[in-house]
């Protein structure tokens, strides 16, 4: 969005472009299902014919992070898995949003033990927290609609100046 960056004031053209861009972003949110445990089954149930998620724009669940904009972290995140989740989050291109699905990701859930991260907001910025163990598919659709509301209020140039993440690459030969 190069031209956008030059027009700094809020004029008629910029707000219209913002509205169109926000509408196109919110109507085709492609989720990246980070399905780890039981909540992943409810996420699969949200995509099945009864609670169809495709009618809200999430037509495909791509398992590669390079093609998604929404990461749904579904399941208990342990310390060993946290590094993997963070790596995948870093690989997603901007703009991106995160839903913390279920009690385990929001706060550690019913697992108060040595290996479970007590809330993924310790290492990821989260946009919507979902309650439930597991949350019903209707609840996940509600979260998706809230993300769409959040996107409709963004401006196109909000994601310009984000710093690129550092990915550690091991050279082994």
């Amino acid at each position, binding site marked *: 969005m190069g031209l956008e960056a030059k027009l700094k004031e809020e004029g008629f053209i910029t707000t219209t472009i913002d509205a169109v861009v926000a509408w196109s972003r919110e109507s085709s949110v492609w989720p990246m299902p980070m399905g780890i445990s039981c909540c992943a089954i409810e996420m699969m149930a949200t995509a099945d014919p009864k609670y169809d998620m495709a009618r809200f724009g999430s037509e495909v669940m791509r398992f590669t992070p390079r093609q998604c904009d929404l990461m749904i972290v579904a399941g208990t995140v342990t310390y060993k898995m946290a590094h993997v989740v963070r790596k995948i989050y870093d690989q997603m291109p901007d703009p991106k949003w995160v839903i913390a699905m279920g009690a385990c990701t929001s706060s550690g859930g019913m697992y108060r033990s040595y290996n479970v*991260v007590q809330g993924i907001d310790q290492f990821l910025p989260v946009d919507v927290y979902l309650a439930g163990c597991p949350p019903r598919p209707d609840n996940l659709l509600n979260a998706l609609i809230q993300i769409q509301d959040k996107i409709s209020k963004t401006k196109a140039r909000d994601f310009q100046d984000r710093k690129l993440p550092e990915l550690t690459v091991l050279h082994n030969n």
Partner: protein
Amino acid sequence: MNLKELIPQKLQEKFSHVKFEFLDYRGDLSVKFEKEHVVEICRFLKEDSDFQFKLCEDVTAIDWAKRKNRFTVVYHIFSLKHNFRLRLKADVDESDCTIDSVTPVWKTSNWLERETWDMYGIKFNNHPDLRRMYMPEDFQYHPLRKDFPLMGIPGSLPLPKKD
């Protein structure tokens, strides 16, 4: 003769130099012996044509949190021919926290012994590949011991940074 009487009789007759303790509680038969004889007793139970305990179901340990004989290693084995389950127990002291591995007898015990090593810190001699099972390789403690706190030790597991 049913197995509950046959097993003590045959074991005592074949391994007369070993001290056994038999217990029948709520329908389960358990056999307790010293840890040095584990491999030969297990091999006998598997290969004897009367018994044929070919399926090893479980290998685990109990931490009694007392000074002498702190751990007990417990094996559950099953005979498909007679549909009979047997429990074997061997005490392990904390000062010499090792026991012979039964991987030469049943291949199933490979991962189960690795899990016991990870959780309790009991080393298995002659194990082909003794690594940690669940915790990361550089974790320094053994979680299921009674002196490890439930919430873990802060700093023992690193987290990625939030920007």
